[in-house]
């Protein structure tokens, strides 16, 4: 049977589709445009403590999720967030936490637990990864019935996936009401009211993100020292499609993609050392509306 399966697998491999010409052209254009002359960097020897510090910071966030709730609220906020949110607003009786998912580097996970054994876990991810999820409005509605209840909606630039777990399959009404109210305290970043970009705005966005980064970076602040960035705007953005899927083409066309490199981490991991943000100019100034990776 295994020989037969292997034969069928090999046969199937001959029928795999090819990439579409249009997709290939787009990818090629972006890839080629990303080539820059490389300056040789001096090798950096970074202690594992850097990685441990990052991991430890995430661990603290996750520890909150697993503590089963306590009467005294505990608020742990890693600045994985953008200019606002995501996460839960503090409320009496609820312990909340928010942390970056270390697997992805861009997915944010938030939890809220209380003394009744109710746990609400919310996962926030760029809408472009989950195309087709219907748009929703806050507050999200808690579904009826069951110990585990889930709701998924595209809100702002984000797909938010919420799971509410009760201690029992038939929780008392008061427990359900408390969960519903906590769900109402969920904060999801909004798409920006982006203004048209002028020629100099690409550079301005890059400068803004580099200024903004140290106070919003989720790892050790020393890792952002010496950060460099490149920026492109509108349809020239390598991730224009993602931006358009998240917040619509008009916002994407008025956004700047800022690709940041953290030189201190380049020797450790590409995924840790390369960050991508979407920024837009609004009436209140520049805003970073999404971390794309």
């Amino acid at each position, binding site marked *: 049977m295994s020989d037969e399966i292997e034969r069928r697998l090999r046969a199937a491999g001959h*029928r795999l589709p090819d990439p579409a010409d249009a997709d290939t052209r787009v990818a090629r254009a972006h890839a080629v445009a990303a080539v820059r002359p490389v300056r040789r960097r001096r090798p950096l020897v970074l202690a594992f403590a850097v990685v441990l510090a990052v991991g430890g910071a995430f661990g603290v966030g996750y520890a909150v999720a697993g503590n089963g709730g306590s009467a005294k609220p505990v608020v742990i906020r890693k600045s994985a967030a953008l200019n606002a949110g995501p996460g839960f607003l503090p409320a009496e009786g609820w312990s909340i936490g928010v942390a970056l998912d270390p697997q992805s580097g861009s997915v944010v996970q938030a939890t809220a637990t209380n003394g009744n054994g109710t746990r609400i876990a919310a996962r926030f991810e760029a809408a472009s990864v989950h195309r087709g999820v219907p748009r929703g409005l806050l507050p999200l509605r808690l579904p009826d019935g069951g110990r585990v209840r889930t709701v998924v909606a595209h809100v702002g630039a984000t797909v938010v996936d919420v799971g509410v777990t009760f201690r029992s399959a038939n929780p008392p009404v008061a427990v359900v009401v408390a969960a519903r109210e906590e769900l109402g305290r969920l904060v999801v970043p909004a798409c920006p009211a982006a203004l048209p970009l002028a020629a100099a705005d690409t550079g301005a966005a890059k400068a803004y993100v580099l200024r903004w980064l140290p106070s919003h970076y989720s790892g050790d602040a020393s890792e952002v020292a010496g950060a460099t960035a490149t920026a492109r705007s509108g349809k020239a953005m390598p991730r224009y499609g993602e931006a358009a899927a998240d917040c619509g083409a008009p916002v994407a066309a008025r956004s700047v993609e800022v690709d940041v490199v953290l030189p201190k981490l380049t020797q450790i991991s590409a995924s840790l050392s390369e960050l991508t943000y979407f920024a837009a100019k609004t009436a209140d100034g520049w805003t970073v509306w999404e971390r794309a990776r």
Partner: protein
Amino acid sequence: METDADLVLAARRGSREAFGQLFDRHWPRVWRAAYSTTGERELANDAAQDAFLRAASALHRFDLSRPLEPWLVRIAINRAVDLVRARRRLVSEDLADERYAFDEPLPDEELQEALSRLGPERRAVIALHYWLDYTTPEIAEVLGVPLGTVNSRLARALRDLRLHLEARNV
């Protein structure tokens, strides 16, 4: 014809033409590796493009004594697995019936059904071995896991496929 190493050296100096040649040379297989893992064109496009974008910004780290394609495939598959994982629901109870279908059906429908039940890691191993003709040591290098892990993933994937096909008696 210039070797990959020659083109990487030129690209390091900023030659977009050289990187374009590398793209043309490796894009189809890198894309297929991503598609085999995700089963979706859009995700495969994202993952494969990401591999080349990352490669473009990390050429200085590439070891010229090694082949380029496994490096690109590794980035693409890691990204593809991340994208597939990202589709998973937060609540694990909901994952039991999750399947990974292909955008474009394979002619062997029963095999496709069985493949759709494999997780992305096992599908990646199947794709690398049977569709891209990588040996198991090469797969271990591409995925950055021990050879034993590759062998066990491959064995378990084949076992799952066999069980599913036997259950359907086809």
